């Protein structure tokens, strides 16, 4: 077992054990906080596929995060008010069932990622960063000025959605749902990275000319990973909205994109557990420093700076050694 796998295992188990402890100790907020880490990590895992594996630095992943969130918000708000989502040409009812919401969130994000990706992938490098930002901003402003679903105020859902057989209102059960999803997605992304697809994509990131000359289209590889990535982040968005029982355009803002990216970089780009470590560290800092001083952002900034300057390859890169990390 390499140091990285060991570290990943500790991280994964710790993230599981802590909320269990909190449950036992009756500290429900600690469970909520862990759930938040898990969900944001999930969003990061989504981005990390595009960013780490595909080299696609997307500053527009808030779009998918928000689409997932709004999928939950819109469906649940209709269910909450007993009004159908759509009456023509056929009736679509809202729903409060998580699996259905997830499905809608994932499909909607996939479609959005397909369109955004297909157009954005014409560019590369910094241009790609900016064009994805542009699409994200379009959705953001659209959501803000679209009155039907609350505009800037967003949508509140009073009761968390349901999952068959579980009581989602119980923090620990909701945590377990999210944790299971994160686990499944991590497994998927590990598989993906080691697969033929992963190999080709990884090569395309470094030299797309080479990939073409062996008869593989980099564009298709990239579009595929972008869509998968968007789907995962979209799913995370739906969960996040459920965690907060609330969705608003701020989920679509570029700051959100930036924050998801910060998780990834902080934890270690292209590291399987990078986003998990990053989200954990960030939320932890936010939680601990937030109460410390009115000017706690200064300390947060200094700590982040310390990580970039002295911990190359993010948290995991530093703790687990260099192998595997690019850049």
């Amino acid at each position, binding site marked *: 077992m390499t140091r990285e796998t060991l570290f990943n295992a500790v991280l994964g188990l710790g993230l599981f054990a802590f909320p269990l402890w909190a449950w036992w100790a009756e500290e429900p907020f600690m469970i909520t906080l862990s759930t938040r880490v898990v969900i944001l990590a999930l969003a990061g895992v989504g981005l990390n596929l595009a960013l780490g594996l595909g080299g696609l630095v997307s500053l527009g992943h808030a779009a998918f995060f928000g689409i997932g969130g709004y999928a939950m918000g819109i469906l649940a708000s209709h269910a909450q008010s007993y009004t159908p989502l759509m009456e023509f040409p056929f009736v679509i009812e809202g729903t409060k069932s998580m699996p259905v919401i997830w499905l809608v969130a994932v499909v909607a994000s996939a479609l959005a990622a397909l369109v955004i990706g297909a157009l954005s992938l014409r560019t590369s490098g910094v241009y790609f960063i900016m064009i994805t930002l542009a699409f994200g901003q379009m959705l953001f402003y659209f959501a803000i*000025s679209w009155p039907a679903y609350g505009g*800037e105020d967003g949508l509140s859902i*009073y009761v968390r959605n349901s999952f068959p057989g579980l009581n989602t209102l119980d923090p620990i059960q909701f945590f377990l749902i999210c944790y299971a999803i994160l686990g499944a997605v991590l497994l998927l992304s590990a598989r993906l990275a080691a697969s033929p697809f992963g190999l080709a994509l990884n090569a395309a990131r470094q030299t797309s000319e080479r990939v073409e000359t062996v008869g593989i289209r980099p564009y298709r590889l990239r579009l595929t990973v972008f869509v998968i990535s968007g789907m995962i982040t979209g799913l995370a968005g739906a969960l996040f909205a459920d965690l907060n029982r609330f969705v608003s355009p701020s989920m679509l803002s570029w700051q959100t994109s930036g924050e998801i990216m910060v998780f990834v970089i902080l934890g270690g780009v292209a590291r399987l557990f990078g986003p998990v470590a990053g989200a954990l560290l960030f939320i932890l800092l936010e939680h601990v420093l937030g109460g410390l001083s*009115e000017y706690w952002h200064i300390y947060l900034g200094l700590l982040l700076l310390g990580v970039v300057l002295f911990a190359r390859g993010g948290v995991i890169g530093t703790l687990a050694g260099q192998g595997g990390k690019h850049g």
Partner: protein
Amino acid sequence: EPVKVGMITTLSGGGAGLGVAIRDGFMLALKQSGTTDVEVVVEDDQQKPDVAVQLADKMIQSDKVDILTGIVWSNLAMAVAPAATAQGKIYLSPNAGPSALAGKGCHPYYFNVAWQNDNLHEAAGAYANSAGLKNSFILAPNYPAGHDALAGYKRMYKGDLAGELLTKLGQTDYASELAQIRASGADSVFFFLPGGMGISFLKQYADSGIGLPLVGPAFSFDQDILQAVGDAALGVHNTSQWNKDLDNPANAAFVAAFLAEYGRLPSLYASQGYDTANLLLSAMAKADISDKDAFLAALRAADFDSVRGKFSFGPNQHPIQDIYVRQVVKEGDIYTNKLVGVALEDHSDVYAAECEM
């Protein structure tokens, strides 16, 4: 047993000024009362709704607070208040008053100690009538509170509209809008542009030489902001439920104490924070927090000396109060407001009718 209060407010970033004012006002009232029965947890929401929600969760689940308060912005209030009241926590709004929470979404645990969002704009409309303005150009940012602002103004205003614009949220340059105002033949301009947007607009308006009378809600003429606007704001009429020269003993004491404590004049937001704390204290004097019904009844009675004078709650637990017209003046080196009249008396809001409580 002390009452635990969770204050979620904006203490970092561009909107921090408002949160700081609310907090300072609130704390001042507690300090003056000398009570040891209130324990306050203050946290920074960074003006992000999801952070506010997380903080609310923390305060409810971990700090076990009885009462939440402090939120500055409507969208954050919308994120926190319904969920909090649904969990049986009392929410006292020291600033935002979105219509959704005043009408259908009203709740016995939700109290607004400031105003319903439309109020000051309605007052501006009423003032425009009384000032004989006949052809207003109106503008606000394109988001729910902005829509409410224009709707509120139009509800009371009886003249014609020379033009109506929704600007971009966070916009900093208004040259294009100013050109349209100039060309519109308006006789006055009503604007609602909170925070930095208002400062930018006012400076640019003054520099454009358009010179038409301006009307607006108090937000852009707040004590803490006026110093940044400077001469550009001089003489502008604005509407507010409070001003530092309101003639009542509670207010005089508040202004003096605030100045002594923090070394600056209190702002509108500070007055609201102060009132919120005093409302809470008045309820605590009458009932114990463990007796929810009695405590809510005590809050509803609003038996405290508001710095704005008359104050009571309507059926939707939003204020019924007078709204005044103020004018920006310079006192020595300091830009401030002076009262020049009353725009609306004993005003409540139109959404109260929809509230079934």
